[in-house]
């Protein structure tokens, strides 16, 4: 083979290669050309549409509100959209709940908290085809400003809270855009438990909800739960204030564990360490000794209990009551139960919509109670349980299943979800509990139950330093550690008692929910520290 020949072969190969490459190139070029053509076409189209879009200043993404100007525009609330507003032109700011484009019109559902209204953008003399398209492309959960005409509808809109009217949108501007991919869909988050599985639809599990709490809190159910919770706090404060109680604030960083040392959080405090308050117990009692007579406080309480149950949190809101009484600690029980009954009545009378909303997702029987509250004694409870076939000692504490069973028995007979169990055995209560005057085995202490679960634990406290010392020694508690506590009773202390309620638990049980995390806005438990 000569050099030429070799070269010739190579050339041929090259030529072959280049032929292939050429073809490829050609194809690519064609593609590019097509793309370009398309783009050009699109651009042209856009241009042409932009050119003949008569409504282009009626929609768009508005510049980020940086407080450039102070518009004198009144925004109407969704809940105020009633038939009275028919034929008025109004401005409204709301979230896009859903949007559905259908040919020349686009239906939007605009939401404001738990209220929503149907809105319509339709091609006509006010809105162009492009405007409809723009409206259809607004991502869910974006916040928009709309100007619209309120119109009465023939048929009630079942899916919205404002059933009698709809909005005919004339202008629409996006104020804040949501990312197109939401971590969870609001409809999925409010779907009742069993229903999703049956229809093959998605439900959102607890952890996803809690991880994306901001979106989960937007759901109607969450809105209702936390409005009701705020109601509980409000009613608690109002009722106690009218009863002559004084609201106090107690420190949350304390030097010594107030109730036993086991379940307390330690925090570093400059060169030493301190603890997070497990309850305002000591401070409440000190206020009583300081002649405040009747006090209450609302504040966070910390428990370092590593229990992952449906009703334990490591931080929760405690509603604490402490009061001096005249002769019998039942005065305290009466005060507390009356407060609870007032709260239940207030919720029953003023929060019916919220209760119904929560019931849609988590159905439960309405909360029933008696006024005055039913009071049973511990020995009776034990007898009732014995009768039901439960084996337990007379002086044992109630186990959780027994509590539940007792709740069912009481409900069966008295038809109440709220009752007081009085006279607990002394052995199962803390050292500062006052013993029963007639039977040293029992004590002047009580628990309150809602739907068979304990919400409050309280007692007449020992207000005598001598007896307190004896009881502490009996419980083998280091006297040095509680010296300050005992000393506060040395200078004359009125007989007093009280108790503490968990706000989250009250809400959970009132609504018949099954997890306390649902009623805690940003729950803290052994496995969750965020968000």
């Amino acid at each position: 083979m000569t050099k030429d020949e070799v070269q010739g072969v190579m050339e041929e190969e090259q030529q072959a290669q280049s032929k292939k490459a050429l073809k490829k190139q050609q194809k690519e070029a064609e593609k590019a050309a097509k793309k370009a053509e398309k783009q050009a076409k699109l651009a042209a189209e856009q241009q042409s549409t932009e050119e003949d879009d008569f409504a282009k200043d009626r929609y768009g993404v508005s510049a980020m509100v940086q407080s450039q100007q102070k518009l004198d525009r009144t925004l109407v609330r969704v809940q105020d959209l009633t038939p009275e507003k028919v034929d008025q032109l109004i401005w409204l700011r709301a979230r896009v709940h859903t949007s559905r484009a259908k040919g020349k019109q686009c239906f939007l559902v605009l939401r404001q908290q738990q209220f929503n209204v149907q809105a319509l953008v339709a091609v006509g003399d006010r809105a162009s085809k492009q405007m409809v398209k723009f409206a259809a492309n607004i991502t869910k959960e974006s916040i928009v400003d709309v100007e619209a005409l309120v119109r009465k509808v023939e048929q009630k809109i079942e899916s919205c809270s404002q059933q009698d009217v709809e909005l005919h949108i004339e202008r629409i501007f996006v104020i804040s855009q949501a990312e197109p991919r939401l971590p969870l869909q609001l409809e999925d988050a409010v779907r009742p438990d069993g229903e999703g599985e049956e229809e093959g639809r998605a439900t959102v599990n607890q952890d996803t909800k809690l991880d994306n709490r901001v979106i989960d809190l937007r759901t109607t159910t969450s809105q209702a739960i936390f409005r009701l919770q705020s109601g509980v706090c409000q009613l608690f404060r109002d009722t106690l204030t009218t009863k002559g109680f004084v609201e106090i604030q107690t420190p949350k960083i304390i030097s010594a564990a107030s109730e036993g040392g086991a379940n307390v959080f330690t925090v570093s405090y400059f060169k030493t360490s301190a603890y997070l308050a497990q309850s305002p117990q000591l401070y409440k009692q000190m206020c009583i000794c300081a002649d405040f007579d009747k006090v209450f406080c609302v504040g966070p309480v910390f428990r370092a209990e590593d229990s992952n149950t449906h009703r334990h949190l490591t931080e929760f809101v405690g509603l604490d009551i402490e009061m001096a009484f005249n002769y019998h600690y039942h005065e305290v029980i009466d005060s507390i139960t009356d407060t609870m009954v007032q709260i239940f009545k207030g919720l029953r009378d003023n929060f019916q919509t919220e209760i119904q909303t929560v019931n849609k997702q988590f159905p439960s029987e309405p909360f029933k109670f008696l006024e005055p509250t039913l009071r049973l004694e511990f020995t009776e409870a034990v007898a009732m349980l014995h009768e039901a076939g439960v084996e337990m000692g007379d002086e044992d504490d109630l186990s959780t299943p027994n509590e539940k069973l007792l709740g069912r028995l009481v409900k069966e007979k008295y038809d109440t979800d709220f009752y007081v169990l009085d006279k607990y055995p002394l052995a199962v209560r803390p050292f500062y509990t006052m013993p029963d005057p007639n039977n040293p085995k029992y004590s002047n202490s009580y628990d309150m139950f809602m739907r068979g679960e304990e919400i409050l634990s309280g007692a007449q406290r020992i207000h005598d330093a001598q007896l307190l010392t004896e009881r502490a020694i009996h419980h083998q508690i280091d006297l040095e550690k509680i010296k300050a506590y005992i000393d506060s009773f040395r200078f004359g202390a009125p007989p007093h008692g009280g108790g503490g309620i968990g706000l989250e638990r009250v809400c959970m049980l009132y609504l018949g929910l099954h997890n306390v995390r649902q009623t805690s806005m940003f729950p803290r438990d052994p496995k969750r520290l965020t968000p």
Partner: protein
Amino acid sequence: MPMYQVKPVCGGEMQIDLPTCMYKLPNVHAQQGNSCTIEHSLQNGEVDPAVKALEARQDEIMKKLYELKAAVEGLAKTVTTPDADLDLTVSSSLSPKSSSSTTLTGTTDLDTLLGKDLGALRDIVINANPAQPPLTLLVLHSLLCQRYRVLSTVHVHSSVTNVPPQLLSCLGPRHADSYARQMFQLGFTLIWKDVPKLQMKFSVQNMCPIEGEANVARFLFKLLAPYPSDPALATLVDSWVDTAFFQLVECSAKERAAVLRALNSALGRSPWLVGPEFSLADIACYCCVMQSGLASSAPTNVQRWLKACENLGHFACVVQFLQ
């Protein structure tokens, strides 16, 4: 002396070697002298005290056995039939008939009537609609209070709002010892609740709720006195109770008038509605007559009987209530 004495044929102190493999009997002859005096006394018509004691013992045992039999029968009945209406034979056989005609004195034992005390307060829970206050039960309550230590409490259920204050205080003032539930024999818990029919719950485990004011009244009355042991009389009491609740309260004026005539003729024959004794029939009819406002238009015998009832003092709460 009816007979002569004979000298013993052989000497009393005869020594005999007795075998040890058999049991011993006392010597018949050795006590001849003593037995003679007993025979003597017997022939004088006196009863041997030993026999007397034996007889008394036998009577006592028989009585105990009868009581036991009655108690067992009662238990068997409560086990097989939870309906308390069928228990009337037990309570009547166990307790003597009330002798007086106006006061209820039958000694009734709560343990036998309501089952064994397990340490819990025996609490009778009555759910009543505030629109129809159960007057009969209020009367029975005041009678129960005279007999037993009763812890009376009134509650309002969350299903009703705005209960008139007189309904809240209808069981009288709060007992001074009401803080200690263990000190009471019986609990009487009245709950004003939105119920279509009056309802009583006692033992949730063993007993279904009792419905209707008449039936609850029967139950409560049995805690005070037994029904008449004569089945015919007992039926008559029941019949009057039903007449009162169904015809006096619920029916038309015509029927009411008919009932008043029937009452009048029954009261012409005896002072009380059923036999010589004041009974549940009187309580029920009195309350229903008063409740329907028929007192003023009632015939003479009925008027006289209404007066007699009022004189007993049991009905003060009804009169107070209707004013």
